[in-house]
């Protein structure tokens, strides 16, 4: 018998070597107690959270929590069913109404996770003989959606408008085309030149899907994302988003103005063959989305936090993923996995949690310490964070 696990041996060995050096396991952290959107007790220490994507800090919003508690009492703990059978409750419709208003679009479809939203929409829309043209740095859920469908998949170099255009022009006449982009790329925290890219996509007869997971609630005058910020949201055919970042719970969605959009509810397998979100989740999400519409002050504070941390880390000598802060993600580039893991651990001991990101999730084989800021981080906390980075960076020998 061939052990099917043999293929994982190189990864098992890499992990063993890393942990043998005495490093705390970066992928096995337990949040024992969560005090606020920005502070938790993990591995026995009170820790500032700087790697949660909880951009707008909605997880402890009193109105959001009240809505969830009420839904638990009124509708029970779960729906035990698919959206197309017994799993559509008032809360799911309320959530979709909130999304339609938030984006000013005609249709909204709620999925059980953001991953499933990309998986479902992409694999269903682009079929045999169609072409998907996508950025090489796309999220795993986009790649998996491509893999699950039958379309031809054509990647282009990250944010490279010319490379995208060349590929679009080579697609055979008459074939269906879907261009897949992201507003914010989550590894380096850089944004896409959506306005130009969408113009080129449209000129070449493609439909456009934009994943705004990391920009919702924060970027754009109404928090609708990078496309809104660049004035091209109306040219986007499908916006994909998630409830697990700014909205502060779990779930995914697609919004669109396409007149035939509703048919997707019957043909999209990751939508049909999954139990729907629990009532408490959709009620917290609907409440949170409505509050995010009026989040201008929080958005402004989050931008300040992002700018302060970016400048602070750069001044201390760290190498960052972008020259200017473009989102609420600041990626600190590590020289290699070993020192990245050591730095991650040193920060944890200082009382700071960030994400350790490494290949294959990262572009160009980089090891990153990815920081995601929250609108609830105080100005003092941001200064504390910069100090922690400085001490840890010196201890590990990175700065």
């Amino acid at each position, binding site marked *: 018998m061939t052990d099917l696990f043999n293929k994982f041996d190189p990864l098992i060995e890499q992990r063993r070597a890393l942990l043998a050096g005495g490093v705390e396991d970066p992928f096995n952290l337990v949040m024992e107690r969560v005090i606020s959107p920005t502070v938790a007790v993990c591995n026995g220490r009170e820790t500032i959270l700087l790697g949660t994507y909880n951009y707008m800090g909605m997880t402890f919003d009193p109105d959001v929590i009240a809505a969830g508690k009420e839904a638990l009492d009124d509708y029970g703990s779960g729906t035990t069913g698919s959206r197309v059978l017994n799993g559509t409750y008032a809360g799911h419709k309320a959530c979709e109404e909130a999304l339609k208003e938030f984006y000013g679009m005609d249709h909204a479809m709620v999925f059980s996770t953001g991953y499933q939203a990309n998986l479902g929409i992409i694999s269903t829309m682009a079929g045999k003989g169609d072409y998907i043209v996508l950025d090489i740095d796309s999220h795993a859920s986009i790649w998996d959606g491509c893999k699950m469908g039958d379309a031809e998949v*054509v990647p282009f170099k990250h944010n490279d408008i010319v490379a995208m255009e060349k590929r679009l022009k080579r*697609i055979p006449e008459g074939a269906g085309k879907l261009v897949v982009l992201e507003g914010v790329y989550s590894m380096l925290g850089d944004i896409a030149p959506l306005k130009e890219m969408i113009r080129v996509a449209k000129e070449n007869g493609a439909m456009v899907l934009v994943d705004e997971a990391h920009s919702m609630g924060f970027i754009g005058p109404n928090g609708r994302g990078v496309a809104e910020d660049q004035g091209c949201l109306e040219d986007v055919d499908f916006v994909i988003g998630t409830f697990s970042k700014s909205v502060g719970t779990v779930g995914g969605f697609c919004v669109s103005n396409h007149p035939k959009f509703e048919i997707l509810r019957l043909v999209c397998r990751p939508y049909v063959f999954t139990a729907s979100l629990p009532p408490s989740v959709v009620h917290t999400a609907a409440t949170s989305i409505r509050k995010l519409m009026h989040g201008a002050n929080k958005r402004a504070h989050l931008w300040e936090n992002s700018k302060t941390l970016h400048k602070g880390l750069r001044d201390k000598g760290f190498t960052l993923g972008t020259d200017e802060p473009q989102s609420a993600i600041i990626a600190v580039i590590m020289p290699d996995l070993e020192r990245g893991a050591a730095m991650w651990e040193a920060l944890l001991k200082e009382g700071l949690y960030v994400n350790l990101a490494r290949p294959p999730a990262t572009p160009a084989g980089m090891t990153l310490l990815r920081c995601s800021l929250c609108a609830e981080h105080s100005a003092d906390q941001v200064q504390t964070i910069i100090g922690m980075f400085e001490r840890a960076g010196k201890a590990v020998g990175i700065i």
Partner: protein
Amino acid sequence: MDRAATAEKIAELIEPFNKKGVAITEATTFAGDLEWDSLTVMDFVAAIEDDFDIIISMNQQAEIENYGQLIDAVTKLQG
């Protein structure tokens, strides 16, 4: 372009990507012999696509493991 001319052109294009100076035959594999990572593959595929003005989709790339298969595929894709 026939197979021989295509092969000649590809030999030229692969040069800057063959950093280890591996002696390339039709049986040379990209992942195994040349030890290319996904980024190198993408840059090399882009160079081929741009030169021949073709698309080699990921679906097609999955079928191309060695150098000979690449020449066959590019010859065919030129139609």
